[in-house]
């Protein structure tokens, strides 16, 4: 040993190792009178993801202003997953194991929600996705309830979304405008497979004969061939199922003057920035969404809308409201359970019943097809359909809450 430096290093190493053995174990128990924490994992760069964190923050502010959860403050810890399932899982683990949150609100992307779901089951964290629409999320809860019961969907799985498109099409496109044929146009993604299957079943019942079905790659940039193909089949309306894309097909629909109305689900068109994003090309586009300025879906809707706009100075994507409602549901469940014990919170979540900002808020039960997803139908939440008219989103369905008439740009040809 001619190297004293080496000696010192070895010594240092053994000291470090000894210290490490004696080091304190991390404290696992959360103090009972400290704040209750709810975590958020979402996509801050996306308009829809950003609103998730803000909606949760708004709910927490509201809860704390009214005495917290049985006197304990509610704290939100939000992490960005950069739209990556891998990062989302790591963020989820960090929230659960490092930050000791009692519940988590997460993501609008089905792929991310499905990556997180097994971790919610493994780590016993009550988790709610305010927008992810894959029907697999609730199917897993249904099929393996005791393991997966921690997962909730604060919005509709895609078969229900499709059903709402059929219901609204029947009431507006068919009854008012007498349209009779439709083309299904959807991106190739996980959430659209059950959507398309339901469309094919329920559109004919609503009075729209399906004359064409186009599935395209979400990386598509040029939609000319797709529109061209659809025009050849001559439908009255395109029933869309798109979320990863939105601006491009809408802008090209307008720039190419495709003479077919565009309706269904165009998730990006539900953002209030969509008019600017497309330079007004969205005029006449109809889409499903969760909220629109001034449309009262429940006694609480308008107050939440006002609070959001006062706090953040813009009108959010619909996830701002579904995340708000989800956070409220968790807080109410913890209040009733008087505990943050995951099993007790889940049991109370299942009894959730309140007037949420998106409508009357209840979850489907254990024996229903879509276990732990938001209940849909008259008297419950329904979602709404908006049409872009002169730079504004105008509510056109449910017809008992909205009375606006449909209007289309002149290049869209409707049957006389």
């Amino acid at each position, binding site marked *: 040993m001619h190297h004293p430096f080496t000696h010192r290093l070895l010594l240092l190493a053994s000291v470090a190792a000894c210290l490490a053995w004696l080091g304190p174990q991390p404290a696992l128990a959360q103090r009972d009178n400290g704040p209750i924490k709810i975590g958020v994992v979402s996509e801050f760069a996306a*308009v829809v993801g950003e609103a998730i964190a803000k909606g949760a923050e708004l709910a927490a502010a509201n809860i704390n202003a009214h005495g917290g959860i049985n006197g304990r403050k509610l704290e939100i810890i939000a992490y960005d997953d950069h739209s990556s399932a891998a990062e989302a899982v790591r963020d989820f683990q960090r929230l659960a194991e490092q930050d000791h949150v009692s519940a988590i609100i997460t993501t609008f992307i089905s792929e991310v929600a499905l990556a997180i779901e097994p971790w919610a089951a493994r780590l016993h964290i009550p988790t709610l996705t305010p927008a992810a629409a894959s029907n697999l999320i609730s199917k897993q809860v249904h099929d393996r309830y005791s393991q997966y019961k921690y997962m909730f969907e604060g919005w509709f799985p895609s078969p229900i979304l499709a059903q709402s498109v059929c219901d609204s099409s029947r009431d507006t496109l068919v009854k008012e405008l007498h349209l009779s044929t439709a083309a299904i146009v959807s991106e*190739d993604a996980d959430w659209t497979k059950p959507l398309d299957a339901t469309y094919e079943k329920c559109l004919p019942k609503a009075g729209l004969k399906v004359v064409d079905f186009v599935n395209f*790659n979400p990386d598509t940039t*040029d939609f000319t061939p797709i529109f*061209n193909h659809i025009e050849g089949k001559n439908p009255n309306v395109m029933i869309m199922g798109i979320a990863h894309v939105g*601006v491009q097909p809408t*802008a090209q629909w307008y*720039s190419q*003057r495709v003479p077919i109305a565009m309706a269904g689900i165009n998730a990006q068109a539900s953002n209030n920035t969509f008019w600017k994003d497309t330079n007004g*090309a969205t005029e006449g586009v109809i889409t499903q969404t969760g909220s629109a300025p001034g449309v009262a879906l429940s006694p609480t809707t308008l107050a939440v809308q006002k609070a959001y706009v006062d706090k953040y100075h813009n009108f959010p994507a619909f996830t701002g409201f579904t995340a708000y409602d989800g956070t409220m549901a968790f807080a109410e469940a913890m209040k009733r359970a008087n505990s943050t014990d995951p099993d007790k919170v889940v049991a109370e979540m299942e009894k959730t019943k309140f007037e949420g900002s998106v409508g009357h808020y209840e979850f489907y039960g254990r024996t229903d097809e879509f276990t732990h997803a938001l209940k849909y139908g008259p008297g419950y939440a329904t979602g709404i359909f908006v049409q872009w008219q002169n730079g504004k989103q105008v509510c056109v369905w449910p017809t008992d809450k909205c009375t606006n008439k449909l209007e289309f740009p002149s290049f869209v040809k409707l049957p006389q």
Partner: protein
Amino acid sequence: MIGLQILIDGFAISSLYGVAAVGFTLMFGVCGVLNLAHGGIMVIAGLIGWWAAVNHSAGPYGGAVIGILAGLIASYVTYFAVVRPLQKSRAIPPEEQEIFILTGTLLWGIMIQVGLDYLFTNNPVTMQALIPGVMHIFGVRTPRNEGLIAVVCWAAIGALYLLVNKTPVGKQLLAASINPRGLTLLGFELSHIYLIVWTVYGLLAGLAGVLLATFFGVSSANAGSLTASAFTIVILGGLGSVPGSLIAAYVVGYAETITAYLIAPTLRPIPALLILVIALYIRPQGILGRR
């Protein structure tokens, strides 16, 4: 009828691919730099142009000009903050400069993308068409803007041709691409020539970004795929060869369009990748490559 449709639609897309790729290939030919932040620079041009047009009432033309300028500035920043320090570093052996520039511009491209995410969100946006409306070419309904894009692209390529072949500056560029050391011996300042190339490159990338934003729309999420497609086209054409890149742009553009029309829109990118692999096995230096 569908044949004519493919011909017209493919032409506009391919011209756009061409303009997006010539700057990239010129940069490699003269400076030996493969700029992997290429897509990021195009997206900056598109987003800033859109932002100026929509939020600051610059109008479609003002927005386009501001977008191209933004592309130029982004190009200069890339050069002075990332590429030049790496080129001047004495610690990097010359034969490894390439990988360092690749890694450096790759990191820079990530920073651009994340920065744009932060400033503009990753929401895609479209710029207003410079000429609105549609025209009918032999019965095929075509947006006027598509025609304009093809014209502007070819005007830009024509201007580049004149610059390289008919001006003293162009002769220096050509000389630099063939024998940089010889040029320095003749008393020309290489860094001066590089600066000209980065200027031309910035203007071309900016133009491509703005046109892309009026045609398809842009989003920060596109930065990576734009770089990859420019890289693909440039390699297929032969690195450093401007005419080769143009031919390759049309091969890729039409391969994609034909697939989308005649086979299935879902399979759009695959034939172009297969052509590329086969072409590289048969002719490793690309269509018009020299090596």
